[in-house]
């Protein structure tokens, strides 16, 4: 790792001040992506602004028909939350299957969302559930938040503070994992709400998480796995790597989507 200064502000306002004052500051949440990145010297921030001391970024609350989860809430806490298990069991299950147990004890919702790794799990949940990303400056719909590979709508001095997930009628997430890293080779989150059906795919797209409108309209008319027969995602814009070709990923999108619909019951 290159050298950096570590700052641990106690309030969000102090964190934003520290971020603006730094030459090239980076926000440290759970560090499960940032630390490996620093260790490989793929980044050289002047300052790490550690959000772990900010109480207002922690915790899980019910807000009407939605669950609001603070950005610094760990995956293990989302998975174990009785509120999340009751309101959106698919989200609790997703959180409980991220990485491994030790990663879940450190990694955070806000870190995952702000990093927007193309194989991360939470972006699929945000997009399929129509979540709202709350930041230090504004609220951003998930549809507008994830803008590309490791890219989001966040400004340099903007920090994710919480995510608001509306509870769906039914939802499920199915993931085909890389057996070593446990990142999604393909993950599909399906959610049915009063407004319709949303299908979000992670792990596959070369621009990160994306929705599949053809699947959504087919499932809105007939919410069964068989409604997806014959709907193929073209491999043109999908990732190809040593783990899976674009064609294989395209195939897996169909399989995982059908399994997710079946799991909705």
């Amino acid at each position, binding site marked *: 790792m290159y*050298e*950096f200064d570590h700052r641990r502000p106690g309030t969000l306002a102090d964190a934003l001040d520290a971020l603006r004052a730094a030459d090239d500051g980076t926000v440290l949440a759970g560090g*499960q992506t940032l*630390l490996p990145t620093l260790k490989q010297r793929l980044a050289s921030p002047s300052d790490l602004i550690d959000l*772990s001391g900010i109480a207002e970024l922690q915790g899980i609350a019910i807000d009407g028909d939605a669950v609001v989860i603070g950005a610094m809430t760990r995956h293990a806490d989302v998975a174990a939350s009785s509120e999340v298990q009751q309101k959106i069991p698919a989200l609790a299950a997703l959180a409980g299957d991220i990485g491994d*147990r030790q*990663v879940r004890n*450190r990694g955070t919702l806000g870190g995952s969302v702000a990093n927007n790794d193309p194989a991360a799990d939470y972006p699929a949940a945000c997009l399929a559930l129509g979540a709202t990303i709350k930041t230090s400056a504004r609220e951003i719909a998930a549809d507008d938040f994830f803008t590309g590979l490791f890219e989001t709508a966040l400004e340099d001095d903007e920090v994710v503070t919480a995510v608001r997930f509306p509870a769906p009628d039914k939802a499920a997430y199915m993931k085909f994992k890389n057996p070593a890293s*446990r990142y999604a080779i393909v993950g599909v989150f399906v959610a049915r709400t009063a407004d319709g059906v949303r299908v979000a795919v992670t792990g596959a797209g070369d621009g990160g998480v994306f929705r599949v409108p053809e699947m959504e309209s087919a499932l809105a008319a007939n919410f069964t796995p068989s409604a997806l027969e014959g709907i193929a995602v073209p491999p043109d814009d999908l990732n190809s790597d040593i783990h899976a070709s674009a064609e294989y990923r395209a195939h897996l999108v169909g399989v995982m989507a059908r399994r997710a619909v079946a799991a909705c019951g």
Partner: protein
Amino acid sequence: MSVTVSMTVNGKAVSGNVEPRTLLVQFLRDHLRLTGTHVGCDTSQCGACVVHLDGVSVKSCTMLTVQAEGAAVTTIEGLAQGDRLHPMQEAFRENHGLQCGFCTPGMVMSAIDLVRDNPEITEDEIRKGIDGNLCRCTGYHNIVKSIKAGAAAMKG
């Protein structure tokens, strides 16, 4: 530029001067000379570096020392009571849950955290639950057996 850190390690208050980039595992091994915690892959995959931070298992190669400021850390050295091994350590010894032993400290620390939530843990749950720990000897069969026995012993 070094900073001062203070935490509790295996029940004792410790402090030291480290650079902010010092990993927790480096602090434990190089500063405190607690070399039971191992560095295997150094990429958060193998789990040889697992310690407990405020009671839950974490990978100490993927944490900065400064992130453990004020925390309570337990390493493999902190489990035994004098000559009496922790029930999970004893279970690994009884069931031949180790071959070369390199992964063992991390396996034991992960296992204790895993079964604490779930004393009636099944073999399938153990196999899934230790997916953050790799054994290069591939001695998983007896590791799983050890964890099941250790869970029963910890309950009793």
